[in-house]
Structures are given as C-alpha cells and as structure tokens.
C-alpha cells in the first residue's frame, strides 16, 4: 500500500510544480533544461487523474466504496478515450486540439504538445484502471501493461541521461518530456508493485546488507556495484563526448565550407577574367563559356555568403565591399567584351591595359582575405577542438573499458574466492552434521542400554527381594515359636527393609520412565485432574476431614500422563503432611505475575524448615524421618523433572508447622 500513496504524492507534487511553472513562466519546472521538450499542461491534468485513481485504489483494501469505484471508472474511461484520441490525432490530423482549447488562452501555454507516446501510455494507464475495476484477477495483464509503460518511459529517461536525443525524437517518441517519462515510471511502479508476484520482485537489498550470513558475499557485491557505476559513468561520459564530437565535426565542416566558398568566389572571378581574355585573343565565342559560368557561380556563392553574413555582422562591411567591387569588375569585363565586339581588338586592348581592373581585383582580394583569414584561424581552432573531443571520447571509452575490465577481473577473483569459501563452509556443515548424527546414534544406543538396564532392574532385582521378604514372612508365620521377641522384632525389620527397598526400586523406575517419556502436548485440565485425585485420596481415607479448594478451569498445554503423576506427587504430599492436623486444608490455584501464570498447591500441614529448601527436590532427599512421614524422597525429584520437561520450574515456601506452598510454572 505504501508505494501507491508515495507514488501518488510524488506525481501530485511534480505535476503541480509543472502547472505552476506554466502559470508563472518558470521554465525549469516544465522542462528542466531549456533545450528539452516541455511537459504539456494537459499531460499534468492526465497525471492528476491517474494519481487520484491510484490513491483511491490504495485506500480501498478489498472492496471499493461505491464513489471510489465510480470515480476510478470515470478516470479510466477519460484516460482511454483521451489517450486514444490524441494518439490518433498524430496520424489522422483531426482538428480539435484539447491542449489549445483548454490552455491556449494563457500566453505561457503556447505550443504545448502531447507526444503520441504520452498519449499511448495514458491509454494503457486507463486500461489498467478499468481492468483493475472489472477484472481484478487478471493480474498478468495489468503487470504487462505496467511493464510496457515502465520500459518505454525508462528507455526515454535513459536517452535523456545519455544525451541521445535521437531516441526521444523518433517519430513515435516525439518529444516525450523527461518529467512525463519520470512520472509514468513512478505511477506504474506504484500501481503494479504491490501486486507483483514475489518471484518477479527484486530481492531485498536491505536484508542483504544487514544479514550476518551474507557478510562474506558483500565485498563481491560492492565490487560489482563499483563496476556497474564505472561502466555507467564511462558510457554516459562517452555518449556526451560523442555528441560534442559530432557537433565539432559539423562546425568544422561549416567553416571549411565557408573557406571553400571564399576561394570559389575568387576563382569565379578569375575564370570570368580568363574567359574574357580568351575571347579577346581568339574572338571565339566558345571562349566566353568560363566567363558566363564564372558570373553564375559568383552570383550563387555571393548569395550564400550574404545569407551567412546575416548571422555574422562583423563581416557585413567586407561582403558589401566584395559585392560592390565584383559588380564593378563584371561591368568592366562586360564592357571590354562589348568594346571588342563593336570597336575591335585595339580598342579593347586599350581598355584592358587600364589599372581599373587590377585595382578592383586587388580590393576584392583584400576583402576576401579579410574574411578568409578569420575563417582559416577559426577552422584551425575548431579542428583543434574536434581533435580534443576525439581524444576525450576515445580516452573515456578506453579508460572506462579498462577500469571495468579490471574491476570485473577482480570480481571474478572474489567470486571464485567466495565460492570456495562457501564450499568450505558447506563441507564443514556436512562434517558437523555427520558428527552430530554419529553422536545422536551413540546417544540412542546409550538410551537403549539404559532401557534394558531399567528392565533388568525391575525384573531381576525384585525377584531376590521377593524371596527375602517372602521367606522372612514364612519364618514369622510358621516358626514364630522358635523365635523370641527380640528375634521376631529383627525379622520384622528385615521385612520392613525389603519392602522399603522395593518402594525405592519403584521410585527409581518411575523417575527413569519419566525421563524416557516423550512429552506429548495437548489441552489438559489441571483442575479436573486435581479434583479427581483429591476425590480418590478422600475415598481411600474417608475418616479424614479435609478442606479442599480447587480453582476451576485451569487448563494448560502438556502431557496428560506426566501431569497426572506430577499432581499426584504434590497432592499426595499435601495429603500426607496434613495427616496430623485436625482440620487440614489443601488448596490448588493460580495467579498471574509479569504476564506469566503461576500455579500453587498449598497446605497447612507440617511444613519444612526453609533452611533446607535446597535439598527439597534432590533425589532420595528427605527432610523428615520415615517414622514421622513415610516416603521415598523421590516424589519431588520426579515432580521437578516433569515440570522441567515442560519447560517450567518448581519452588516452595514454608514455615515449620504452618504448612507449605509449592509453586510451579509450565513453560
């Protein structure tokens, strides 16, 4: 969306400035450089329409509001019809000129012309708007329309930069102004870029420059950028040099023509003179041909010179002199010929021998020399300039190519280096992956061994344990008489110890099973679990009076089985450690702190000394004796492992005899 609004804003700015330029006669706003074609005010109007439509398009995200739809439709139709009409006008000479009709009255608006290319581009813009309105899904067509306009106008912009006026003055491209071309590019960029498929968009340069992973490729990119700049700069400079070169060549040719003409002037006079002489000597009429030709040529050249001298008033006087004296000379020659024809050779010979002819010629020669010397000097100077331009052009091409080649060579080296490094990095990654896979395999093997170890523990350790407990019991039952009270007590302790060992083994197995369990995440209602387990505890011990509070609707994402075991441990503990209180109270709830949900299980039982809180969650660690409260010391270790598997943590606060609160988080 943002490109559309920015582009519309830019176009409004440029076109408004151009209109201002027309109104106030500030030409720089209209054509930037005096020799470049101006943007017609009608074109500015066309851009206002297009930019407004583009803005309207950007405001409505999915469905157009009706008035924007109508406005866009009107704009589209106007642009299509207007563009088609003006384009056709260049070929069919229709009389109605919208430019003159709308803007002709203002003195500044003289001679604005809308180039056929401009009209064509407006036509395509109108088509784009209408396609977008009625067939928004035809994005490929819209893309093509914009692409055509952008490429054409970009070419024209480039031709301005390269000073290649031949391009923007080609018949179809007649005089598209640089402002017009620029605005078309901006307009269609804004229209089509948001809808361009990702594959056709240029890559994100910002990300390339900032990302750490592309740091290695940046030197190459910068070198290529420099190559590009050098090449661009050199080619633009060479293009302009070529333009100047062409200019100097035409100047040289002009001046050379002038010099030749001046020589021709003198030659024609001499030809006429020699023709006259020949006739006087031979009396042959044919000898007069050079005289007539000379006279004709003289007149022709003089006319050209007179035309030229209008732009060079400093030579006006000299040319006038030549004219006058030539006239005298030709009259003299004519008179001599007539004299010969009427009075004969002697009379003519006498007239020729007078100084008048020679004097006149001398004056003519002087005048011609006056102009010619200047022109020859000018010629020399211009030839010098020409040479300079030639050298400049060749130098810029040579140096530019050489620099570009050098830099390209450097880029190739960098590219090879970068590729090699990338290859190395990839090789390293592959190697690391391989090592990782091996390590994973080892870990899996160890896990398998651990599993079979647990299996052995559960099976093989229990069996002799059962025998110990079993036969001790048999002793107790069947051979009670053989034992005295002391002996019976000892036996009972053996039995108790083996039962405890069995519980310990169960505890270890439970703990290891928890670690091996794969955490499966699903919605689990902690409230429901807690209530179920508390119900069971009450059921197993119906005599106890316990105050139970469970916060409802406490749900988490976690493993149902693990969380059940977890709550069992905590609630079982609470139940156990409040067994000596008359009125026991167990509470399960939660609260928010810093945006994180913290759960707790609180009881008013025996509690523990906070000084030993470090040991609370250690495996087999107990803070009470077996006589006070039965237990393996594994429950809380298991609880902590479960909570940690979920990415959370557990901690506790307590005061001796005033109860304990166990807090926990899950991720």
């Amino acid at each position, binding site marked *: 969306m943002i490109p559309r609004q920015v582009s519309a804003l830019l176009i409004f700015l440029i076109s408004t400035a151009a209109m201002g330029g027309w109104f106030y006669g500030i030409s720089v706003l209209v054509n930037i450089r005096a020799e470049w074609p101006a943007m017609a005010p009608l074109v500015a109007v066309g851009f206002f329409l297009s930019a407004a439509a583009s803005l309207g398009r950007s405001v409505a995200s999915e469905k157009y509001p009706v008035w924007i739809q109508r406005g866009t439709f009107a704009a589209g139709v106007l642009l299509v019809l207007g563009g088609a009409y003006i384009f056709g006008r260049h070929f069919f000479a229709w009389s109605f000129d919208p430019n003159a009709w709308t803007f002709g009255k203002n003195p500044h608006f003289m001679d604005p012309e809308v180039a056929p290319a401009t009209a064509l581009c407006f036509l395509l813009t109108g088509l784009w708007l209408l396609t977008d309105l009625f067939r928004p899904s035809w994005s490929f067509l819209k893309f093509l329309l914009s692409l055509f306009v952008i490429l054409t106008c970009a070419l024209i912009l480039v031709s301005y930069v390269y000073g290649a006026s031949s391009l923007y003055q080609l018949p179809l491209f007649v005089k598209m102004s640089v402002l017009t071309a620029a605005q078309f590019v901006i307009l269609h960029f804004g229209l089509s870029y948001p809808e361009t498929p990702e594959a056709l968009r240029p890559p994100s340069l910002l990300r390339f420059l900032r990302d750490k992973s592309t740091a290695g490729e940046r030197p190459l990119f910068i070198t290529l950028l420099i190559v590009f700049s050098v090449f661009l700069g050199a080619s633009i400079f060479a293009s302009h040099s070529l333009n100047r070169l062409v200019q100097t060549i035409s100047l040289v040719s002009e001046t050379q023509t002038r010099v030749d003409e001046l020589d021709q002037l003198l030659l024609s006079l001499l030809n006429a003179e020699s023709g006259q002489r020949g006739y006087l000597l031979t009396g042959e009429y044919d000898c007069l041909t050079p005289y007539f030709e000379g006279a004709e040529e003289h007149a022709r050249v003089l006319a050209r010179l007179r035309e030229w001298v209008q732009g060079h008033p400093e030579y006006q006087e000299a040319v006038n002199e030549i004219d006058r004296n030539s006239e005298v000379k030709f009259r003299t020659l004519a008179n001599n010929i007539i004299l010969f024809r009427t009075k004969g050779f002697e009379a003519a010979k006498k007239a020729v021998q007078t100084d008048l002819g020679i004097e006149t010629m001398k004056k003519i020669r002087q005048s011609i020399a006056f102009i010619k010397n200047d022109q020859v000097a000018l010629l020399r100077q211009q030839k010098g300039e020409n040479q300079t331009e030639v050298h400049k052009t060749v130098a810029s091409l040579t140096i530019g190519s050489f620099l570009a080649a050098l830099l390209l060579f450097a880029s190739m080296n960098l590219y090879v280096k970068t590729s090699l490094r990338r290859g190395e990095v990839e090789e390293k990654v592959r190697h690391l992956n391989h090592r990782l896979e091996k390590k994973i395999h080892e870990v899996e093997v160890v896990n398998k061994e651990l599993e079979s170890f*647990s*299996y052995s523990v*559960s*099976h*093989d350790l*229990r*069996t*002799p*344990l*059962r*025998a110990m*407990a*079993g*036969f*001790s*019991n*048999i002793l107790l039952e069947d051979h009670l008489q053989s034992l005295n009270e002391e002996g019976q007590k000892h036996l009972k302790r053996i*039995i108790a110890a*083996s*039962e405890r*060992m*069995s519980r310990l083994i169960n505890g270890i*197995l439970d703990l290891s099973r928890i670690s091996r369990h794969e955490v499966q995440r699903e919605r689990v209602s902690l409230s429901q679990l807690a209530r179920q387990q508390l119900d069971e505890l009450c059921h197993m011990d119906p005599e106890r009076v316990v105050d139970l509070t469970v916060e409802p609707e406490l749900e988490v994402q976690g493993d149902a089985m693990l969380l059940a075991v977890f709550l069992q441990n905590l609630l079982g503990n609470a139940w156990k450690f409040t067994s000596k209180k008359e009125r026991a109270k167990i509470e399960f709830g939660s609260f928010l702190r810093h945006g994180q949900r913290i759960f707790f299980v609180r009881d008013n039982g025996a509690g523990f000394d906070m000084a030993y809180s470090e040991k609370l969650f250690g495996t087999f660690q107990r803070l009470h004796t077996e006589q006070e409260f039965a237990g393996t010391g594994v429950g809380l270790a298991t609880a902590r492992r479960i909570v940690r598997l979920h990415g959370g943590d557990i901690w506790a606060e307590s005061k001796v005899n005033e109860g304990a609160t166990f807090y926990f988080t899950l991720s």
Partner: protein
Amino acid sequence: MQGTLNRTKYILLVEDNKDDEDLTVRALRKGNIVNEIVITRDGAEALDFIFCRGPHQGRDPHHRPQVVLLDLKLPKIDGLEVLAKIRSEETTKTLPVVILTSSREESDLIRGYSLGANSYICKPVDMNQFTDAIQQLGLYWLVLNEII
C-alpha cells in the same frame, strides 16, 4: 469334550526360580487350594508338557490344565514365546494363560496381551499382598472359571 468331570483339575506353573516357586506353591496351599500343581522349569519343558512330547510323551492331551501360570523370564525359551506357541496351535489356543511376573514394564504388558494372555499379574514383593494375589488367582481360575 468328554469326561472332564472325572479328571482332576490342576495348575501348570512355569517358573525357573526355586524361591518364587516355593512361595507361590505355599501361597496356593495357604489359600486352601489343594489341586495338583505341575511345575516346569523352563520354556522348553513347558512346551513339551503342553504338547505332550519329549519327556512328557505319554500324557493325555485332553487333560488340560485349568490355568497356566507363566513367568516371563525363562531360560531356553522365553515366556512370551511360549505364550505365542500356545496361541498358535488349534488344540491349545483357548488355554487360559496368566502371566505372573515381576515386570510392570508397559512394553511387556502390551506384548503379553497382544499375544493373547488372559491376565497379567505383577508379583508384589510384599508377602501378604503376594499371598492374597495368588489365592484370589487360584480361586478364580480353579473354582469360578469354566474352561473348555
């Protein structure tokens, strides 16, 4: 099946551990179960007995045990393999088999049931519990349960 009324009901106990064997037998007797208890020491012997081959060749195949108490960890042929074998033969497919073992591993439970065990009992370490379990077991399978 004819004449099962005349045949005595007996239990087949497959157990390699002498201690467990003694404790089990004692528990059964304590529960007033007086039926014969046939004991086989390993998987191979158990199969030989059930299929009346080898050292048990002369046995009447129709005289089937009320229930087979099968331990899992057995020498020669594993308990689960024995179960699989029992379930694979037409003649013995319907024989009630109770897995009696120390292991509470879920994998064993799953495998046992999927191979077709009728019941899975964990041998508790506590003597009283063990006795109670065996007695209940014996009463159920010998008195309550009907077999083919």
